[in-house]
């Protein structure tokens, strides 16, 4: 009798443990890659000056964008979550947010440059030189004009608030939503492992 009761209680507990989580109805940010209605969504809370965020972008997210988002199988959404401990993180986030208003290609180019050349601009805050290398002079002028738009700061604040609401404590933290279930990952995850996971769903 007792073992049966124990088993029933545990079965109920496990049902609660593995039930699908309610995914947000619509993401607050626009996608860095892939369609918003892709079967898998990856939402990354990241800081441009954080070395682990760079690793996640370079080693995991970049291949995801190349192999899955380009085919609209995975939607990658980036949220700015600049940490106070990083002197230039918030400025970098402003540049990226401003690039976002130019279009996805420009936004992606700026995000890519900021992570690729993180070591360079992190030393002295030379973000303009980094961004200038990947934009046309015309786009750079537009971006610089847009930098002081108060909407940019508001957007960064919104994304920080969203991160706090989702209990983001450190960067990078990302959420993978697929088949109605959301999973949080703090830190990095090798691309081959994430690829195995994606291939179960969208191959």
């Amino acid at each position: 009798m007792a073992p049966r009761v124990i088993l029933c209680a545990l079965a109920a507990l496990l049902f609660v443990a593995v039930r699908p989580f309610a995914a947000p109805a619509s993401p607050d940010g626009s996608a860095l890659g892939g369609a918003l209605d892709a079967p898998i969504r990856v939402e990354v809370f990241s800081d441009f000056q954080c070395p682990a965020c760079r690793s996640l972008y370079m080693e995991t997210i970049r291949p995801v964008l190349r192999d899955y988002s380009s085919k609209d199988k995975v939607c990658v959404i980036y949220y700015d979550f600049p940490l106070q401990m990083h002197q230039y993180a918030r400025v970098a986030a402003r540049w990226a947010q401003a690039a976002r208003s130019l279009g996805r290609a420009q936004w992606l180019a700026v995000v890519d440059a900021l992570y690729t050349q993180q070591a360079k601009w992190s030393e002295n805050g030379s973000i303009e030189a980094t961004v200038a290398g990947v934009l046309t002079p015309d786009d750079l002028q537009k971006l610089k004009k847009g930098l002081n738009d108060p909407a940019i700061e508001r957007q960064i604040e919104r994304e920080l608030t969203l991160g706090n609401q989702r209990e983001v404590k450190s960067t990078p933290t990302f959420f993978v939503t697929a088949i109605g279930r959301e999973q949080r990952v703090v830190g990095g995850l090798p691309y081959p492992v994430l690829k195995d996971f994606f291939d179960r769903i969208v191959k």
Partner: protein
Amino acid sequence: MAVRIFHWLSRVLLAGVFLYSGWVKVRAPLQFAAAISGYQIVPTRLILPLADYLPWVEIALGVLVLAGWKLRWVAAGAAALLGIFIVIQTSTYLRGIEADCGCFGFGERISPLTIARDGLLLLPALFLALQRSPASSTASSSRK
């Protein structure tokens, strides 16, 4: 009597630890996969299957220890699993890798403390694996 109390304490402790540990991981297989990859010991192809199935093995061990089914064998299995955890954690720590333990939640680095904790958990598992069943000891004591 004291042996019987220790027997039940061991069962409850071991079952509780395995159930909690499995439950945490079942809820977050990708985070657990990240923890496994941090150990740099498991081939990449095996990381996701391990992250999927190991928590269920832990839960099954917890349930069986609590239910008392083939207790000595199940406890031996739990001891073996804990032994594997200890060896892997020690190896990772000695290689100087700062990996997430992934033991009872996430965000705790491997340290001598986490290794010692697993070592302590080994004691009740070994006790249950090596102990004659309490039912038979009760029967023999009542016959005296």
